[in-house]
């Protein structure tokens, strides 16, 4: 089966003032459908940048990036926005939810971009919230939820329009141990039982254990054949 994500010779260069910083160097990578990939590396290794590119939040400077057979490196900003709406769900470390909307309304947000009527939007959101186990908190605002619960609502929002790809950037970085376990278990379940392909950036080796594969990045390139334990020792940042 063809991989969901095909990356060839991918590079990203940032220009800060006069300086050019090459964050990713000629990365080559395939991500299979139904995979749960953990991306690890020290800070500055380019893992978040790679994640952003895979999720279509940014465009590469060089190379090709194809997701689900579509060359997203060739899409402009508005086309990328449309692509994201139907193909990717995001979970971030901070700021996931709009504080003035209830959990249901937060989860409904991606559906506002569709033509679904209000009743259908509400029911889809309800299904997503049930999936993450927070149906009883549907009317609560983020301020009334714990960190772990907020992340689960964010995950509900990420899956509500049924995307193939879930992109998570340090989803447990701000959570206590128990909430982290809940979130990771949920991601795992989505991956195993519902076939979602998950790409997760993390610095926590315990989190990486929930993934099916782990890759390491260092200074913008994928590090081949480094033992996970060693990488964990180096990634104490």
């Amino acid at each position, binding site marked *: 089966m063809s991989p969901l994500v095909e990356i060839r010779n991918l590079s990203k260069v940032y220009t800060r003032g006069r300086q050019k910083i090459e964050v990713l160097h000629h990365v080559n990578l395939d991500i299979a459908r139904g995979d749960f990939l953990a991306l690890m590396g020290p800070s500055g290794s380019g893992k*978040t940048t790679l994640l*952003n590119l895979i999720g279509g939040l*940014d465009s590469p400077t060089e190379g090709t990036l194809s997701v689900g057979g579509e060359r997203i490196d060739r899409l402009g900003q*508005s086309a990328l*926005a*449309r*692509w994201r709406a139907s193909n990717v769900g995001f979970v971030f470390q901070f*700021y996931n939810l*709009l504080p003035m909307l209830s959990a249901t309304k937060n989860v409904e947000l991606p559906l506002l*971009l569709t033509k679904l009527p209000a009743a259908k939007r509400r029911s889809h959101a309800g299904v997503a919230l049930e999936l993450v186990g927070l149906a009883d908190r549907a009317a609560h605002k983020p301020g009334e939820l714990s960190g772990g619960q907020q992340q689960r609502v964010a995950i509900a929002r990420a899956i509500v329009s049924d995307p193939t790809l879930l992109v998570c950037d340090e989803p447990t970085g701000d959570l206590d141990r128990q909430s982290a376990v809940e979130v990771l278990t949920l991601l795992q379940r989505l991956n195993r039982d519902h076939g979602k392909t998950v790409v997760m950036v993390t610095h926590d080796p315990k989190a990486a254990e929930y993934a099916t594969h782990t890759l390491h990045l260092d200074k913008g390139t994928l590090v081949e054949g480094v033992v996970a334990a060693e990488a964990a020792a180096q990634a104490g940042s």
Partner: protein
Amino acid sequence: MKYFNLIWAALFRRKTRTLFTLLSVMAAFLLFGLLNSVREAFTSAGHSIEGASRMLTISKVSFTMELPQSLDMRIQSVPGVAAVTYANWFGGIYQDPKNFFANEAVAANFFDVYSDLELPPAERRAFVATRTGAVVGASLARRFHWKIGDKIPLQATIFPQKDGSNTWTFDLVGIYHVTNSREKQQEDAFFFNWKYFDEARQFGNGKVGWYIEKVAQPKDADRVAQAIDALSANSDHETKTQSEAAFQAAFASQLADIGLIVGSIMGAVFFTLVLLTGNTMAQAVRERIPELAILKTIGFSNRSILVLVLAESVLLLALGGAIGLGLADLAVSVIRAQGIPIPMLPVGLAIWLEGFGLMAFIGLLVGVLPARRGMRLRIVDALAGR
């Protein structure tokens, strides 16, 4: 539309700040409503449908000079004149000079020409039949608690009676109403019989203050006006005939350039409002950059972010502005119901439309820069907190 929930929630994210800003917007549009109500009272006098077919003939020398009553017949015979009536400014005082209201001695057919002053036929007949009869507007009657049958004395300032006394006493026989809300200020007047006036006045008998003509065809107005003035050309009582609207406009412009005053005040008010709401919107968007970034990750296009912020800005202005104008409307009704004699017209459609136009304009103006900022944010930088 479906985004309304999102826009409303965004607006009330910081309840106190939004509330304070709304109160400032309300104050601005309260002033807008009140001041324009006064301005309209000045500038739109005489612009009624009835007024469009009426003209005033005054002395060309000065509007305080009188005209002979004999002109009445001659004006009637001018082609195009449907009806003629006449009046004299009396300028009487009721109890205290501060209780100012218009009082005039008018011909018997006055209410035919001024049919917008609605007087029941029975009271009209009583007016003509009673020598000392007087007819007042409903607002004036409410102000001084007059009822039909009351005897009302006025102190003359210009016209003493033949016996030298300044006191003229009248019997209230009728109360008229004005249904057109834009002409409501006409309800503050007092009319009595010219016949009684002319018989009893000490001097100037047989003289009339001004004539009012009703033209059969408003489009003939200019021609008829010239014909009327031609009657008195080269006499000792040369006349000037003009439309009611033109006369009122000339008078109002002598009182004050009310348009300039109101315009200047509102200019200052809206300038400060733009600054205030612009600041609020800028702050609001600045705080929400990460949230706008999340919306973009979900797939909201740049343009939709722009529209969301602009809509929020316009909603802020529209909400505060509508409440402010509503308060102005209420205030004007209360002031007029109490009979407080400030010239004000009810806040009408024109003012509401102009108000909404301003709300939209200011909303867009103060929203543009924050909206562009939100639209142009780079997702990656915004989420990283840069």
